């Protein structure tokens, strides 16, 4: 599926964060080699990005509530090049014109359907959650099992 992280091949684990040039463990803004030399601009994968929204609008959006579809679209809009979106539920509610409680239900429904993965769980102290959007539901991705298999 587009945007789904792949398992890391053996020997290609990322370098330790404490050894990165910025030293604070954050993901560097630009792709860098091991020794900190800039390796040019990161590749922008706009094609993937449009494939995600196209698949969502063509196959998935019609079966969702208005709040769930709009929540998904706002999170897709806010997705950064690292594949995650950090938007607070209050902000989502303001932008789609709904109550925070409606947004909360919409997020839960999207997670349950496999359209949203919570990659970092936020809180009052930890800030907003981080999400990864997926265009297709679990049922759409996993074909029904044959009764003969």
């Amino acid at each position, binding site marked *: 599926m587009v945007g*789904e*992280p*792949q*398992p*890391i*091949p*053996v*020997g290609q*684990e*990322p*370098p*330790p*964060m*404490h*050894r990165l040039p910025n030293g604070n*463990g*954050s*993901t560097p*803004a*630009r792709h860098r080699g*091991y*020794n900190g*030399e*800039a390796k*040019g*601009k990161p590749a922008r994968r*706009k094609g993937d*990005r449009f494939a995600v929204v196209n698949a969502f609008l063509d196959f998935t959006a019609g079966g969702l509530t208005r709040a769930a579809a709009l929540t998904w679209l706002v999170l897709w809009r806010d997705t*950064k*090049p*690292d*594949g*995650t979106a*950090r938007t607070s539920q209050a902000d989502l509610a303001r932008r789609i014109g709904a109550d925070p409680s409606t947004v909360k239900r919409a997020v839960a429904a999207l997670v349950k359907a496999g359209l949203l*993965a919570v*990659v*970092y769980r*936020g809180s009052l102290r*930890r*800030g*907003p959650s*981080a999400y*990864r959007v997926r265009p297709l539901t679990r049922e759409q991705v996993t074909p029904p099992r044959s009764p003969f298999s």
Partner: protein
Amino acid sequence: MAHSKSNYTAAADVFDGWKDEVLTGSPPTFYPIGSGELARIEIGPGLVTLLGGAPGAGKTAFVMQAVVDALRLVPALRALVCNVEMPPKVLLDRQLARLSGIDLDTIRYRRLTAEHAERIDQAMHTLEPLTDRLAFVRPPFNLENVAASADGFRADMIVLDYLQRIPPPGEHADKRVAVNATMDYLRQFADAGVAVLVVAAVGRTKDNKGRSSYSGDGLNLASFRESSELEFGADDCFIAVPSEDGGEYGAVAVTLRHLKARHTRAQDLTLEFDGRVQRFSEAADPQTWNPDRPGKPPRGRLQSALASAWAKTPPAEADADQGAESW
């Protein structure tokens, strides 16, 4: 007087199967645990591999890396881990640190923030598919329970960490006899077709100044605690010896001294161990290993000159960072 029942295998019975294996060129099965230096370590069905080392040398980190990477590289492999000192969640914390490159402390104290999200997500996606093929022995930690668990889980690889704390069945006069018996059983496990990876504690020995210590100078085959049977029963014996000086980032060079190789030529391995992320990786040329820049292969004269020329060249305007918001 009771006569003991004869128990032998005639060479004629073994010969046909052996001949087929030789003539069809079927090599023995090995479970790879990495590339480069790590690929030289033979772990596979029928083999008992023993790893010793002083406390804190990275023995558990090494065997858990070996198991997880073997599971990543061999899709059908199933492994059973018996660790008497650490519960499964702690062992998984360490693997998460290794695969994500995030400090173990940050993971252990659950101080993850949004900047870790992408690495955690990818590491979880790496670990999760392995979970059906990896199991941990629950107490009691004894060999009967290990054997029953290995049968139940259909394990191809068994890890015992560590041997001196896992008693064999029956009563034994002392610790030494018990360890002898444990090794006998492990040999039988291997003969039944599983790979056995064993961590063993070592005793202090006299260093070159006559002091009692875990110094690498004094560690040898006789250092395995309790019994010489360990060295006889194992196919390969390694002792992990960390270097005394660490680098700026806490990484140290660790030599795996290959003290016994039943089937190959013993050859020491030089690795780099970064304790903060619990990761062993291939070290650069040990002669020129620099603890502050571990893992970086030494450059030739021309490569270094070229690199320094690039370093002196300012980046072009177009290479300047652009906001991540501008999709």
